């Protein structure tokens, strides 16, 4: 449900960045989403199709890049990548974990002219 306001923020950010970079049209938005966020690509696409109308993003599509959950265990001091957002060290089972990546939700780049 929160993807509406999130997608609105995405479109607003891309319009601003298109202006700053002298783009009249954006064709691709390269978006990175960490696996430890609550954002769904399907919902973002759903709202994007509606929100992009009449803006410089009108002809754009979003390319999603999933960022894995990478952690460092404070117990054994080793780094791992985990599939599920459950912060347990797969190497020593400790739960005192530092999250290295997985919370990203950013526009990496835009392509346009």
């Amino acid at each position, binding site marked *: 449900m929160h993807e509406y306001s999130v997608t609105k923020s995405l479109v607003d950010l891309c319009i601003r960045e298109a202006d700053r970079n002298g783009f009249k049209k954006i064709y691709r938005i390269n978006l990175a989403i960490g696996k430890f966020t609550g954002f769904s690509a399907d919902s973002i696409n759903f709202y994007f199709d509606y929100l992009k109308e009449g803006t410089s993003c009108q002809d754009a599509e979003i390319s999603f890049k999933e960022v894995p959950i990478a952690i460092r265990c404070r117990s054994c001091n080793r780094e791992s990548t985990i599939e599920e957002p459950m912060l347990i060290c797969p190497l020593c089972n400790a739960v*005192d974990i530092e999250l290295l990546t997985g919370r990203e939700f950013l526009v990496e780049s835009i392509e346009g002219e």
Partner: protein
Amino acid sequence: MKKVNILKPVLVSNKERASQNKKFFNDLGAFVINIIASPGAGKTSVIERIIQYFEAEKILVIEGDIRGQTDSERLRKTHADVVQINTLTECHLDAFMIAQVLPEITQPYDIILVENVGNLVCPAEFEIGEDFKLAILSTPEGDDKPIKYPLLFHLAAVVVVNKSDLLPHVDFNVTHAKDNIEKENKRARVFTVSAKTGEGFDPLCTFLAKKVDGKKKNKN
């Protein structure tokens, strides 16, 4: 066609606005708690107990609901002041909604309790300028919720397990709940309470009082 690197968080505007809100709250010397839980977990009842404990402190509640004023009406019977935000369609409070009510805050407060919209998912993503997030998990919801809604429990500094009075009647194991919280957030402080009976609020409020005092000292 050209490609330019942007490397900006999508929620950059919200983050910037949250920092401005935080500065406003810091200037007031108010300790701000963003209270997040599912509908019916007992957010308003927990808030009533916290207000009762801090009888000498000046407290403001920012009350977030999709519609209605029922929680505000309840809380206006306490010594706290209340500001209502109706989000109408949005399932969470964001930094801009909080910013809109800042002009109504015309006096200093020791504590500001923000009751977010009842939801375990969306409110976790939006900073509002709080000092920390407090998640409430009530016993009828089940002890597996930290695993199902990991982000909130990962970000919450404090988790309150509410409705301990119902433990004999529901399938909820406090030890399992604590283990599940630990899997998301080793550093979270967990307090088991009953807003119905008042049990367990002394340790919680003693912990909060230290935070509130710390903030006051920082201001002075």
